[in-house]
């Protein structure tokens, strides 16, 4: 691999599981590749990999992160390139090994090697704050915290912010995922503003709850490729913001005449 340009390694984390980390990594990674950047996605969830499924690459994995660390395979042998977007590569996690079999220094070494080829390295962190989390953050220059607007997710995220800061990782951005504007309007869901106020970090993106995300995970095509999906549009905007563009936040709720009438009669 050749030396080039400055690259940035971004860990995508949350503390709590099931908030949409891997969905975010897959779509934002693809979005950055669509913008012409060379992107590598690193799955550090050893034993419970997901990114291969999100990207539809599960049948093309030969080697994985643990194989690279143990010297069984060279890094370029383990990288799986996306067929439609060759600037996007995946370094998959091992599915039949354990997180404890690698350490932060080893992951950092691999990521430092990836910096030679890729502009963006997105590291998908496992849930939790144990060894797997420490492996994921070891090489990161900055972090994206994916949060759902509900108490357990925000509390876990706050704990993660503390851990990131104590590891000298202070450049942390917030993505609020699975927002339901109708529930926010009815006063039954924390607003994005309240979540951001509690966590006091920079807001990078707001992603609405979207049934089409399930479809995308079924087909292995990240939701960013679905032009009917508002969540896909939101992920595309996040990628553009990461790349330095100034993109306004999406209007998540349509205010047509029909929705206004429905609200008047409390049926929307």
């Amino acid at each position: 691999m050749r030396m080039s340009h400055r690259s940035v390694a971004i860990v995508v984390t949350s503390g709590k599981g099931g908030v949409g980390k891997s969905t975010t990594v897959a779509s934002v990674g693809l979005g950055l590749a669509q913008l012409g950047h060379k992107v590598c996605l690193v799955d550090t969830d050893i034993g419970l990999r997901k990114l291969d499924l999100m990207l539809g690459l599960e049948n093309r994995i030969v080697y994985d992160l643990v194989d690279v660390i143990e010297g069984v395979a060279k890094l370029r042998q383990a990288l799986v390139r996306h067929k439609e977007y060759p600037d996007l590569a995946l370094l998959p996690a091992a599915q039949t090994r354990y997180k404890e079999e690698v350490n932060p220094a080893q992951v950092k070494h691999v990521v430092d090697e990836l910096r030679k080829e890729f502009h963006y390295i997105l590291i998908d962190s496992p849930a939790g704050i144990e060894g797997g989390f420490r492996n994921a953050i070891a090489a990161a220059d900055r972090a994206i915290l994916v949060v759902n607007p509900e108490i357990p997710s925000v509390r876990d995220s706050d704990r993660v912010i503390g851990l990131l800061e104590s590891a000298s990782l202070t450049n942390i951005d917030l993505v609020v995922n699975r927002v339901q504007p109708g529930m926010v309007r009815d006063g039954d869901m924390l607003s994005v503003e309240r979540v951001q106020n509690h966590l006091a970090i920079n807001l990078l993106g707001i992603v609405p709850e979207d049934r089409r995300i399930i479809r995308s995970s079924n087909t292995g095509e990240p939701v960013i490729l679905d032009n009917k999906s508002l969540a896909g549009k939101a992920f595309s905007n996040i990628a553009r913001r990461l790349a330095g563009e100034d993109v306004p936040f999406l209007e998540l709720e349509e205010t047509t005449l029909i929705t206004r009438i429905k609200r008047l009669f409390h049926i929307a």
Partner: protein
Amino acid sequence: MSFLNMFGKDKEEPTATKADDRLALVLSYQRSDIDEKKLKEFRGRLIQLCDDFGYDVVGHIEVIPQSKERTTIINASIPVRLKEQMKEPI
């Protein structure tokens, strides 16, 4: 109004405000690593401190951690009055 209710649902009390208050409390405890044991000890020291400065604590001491940005502010409410001076014998 009852006509409008035909189309409506039975309105329940919104819950986001409650979530917000609960979150503020758990975050302030979490950030300052405060638990009930620590708060009890804190109250004990405050009583001692008041005593040293010549005050009697005359009610319940409230120690409430609150979050502002990522800083925890510990608010203490201590009802006191000046200790009565011992009268000199004539």
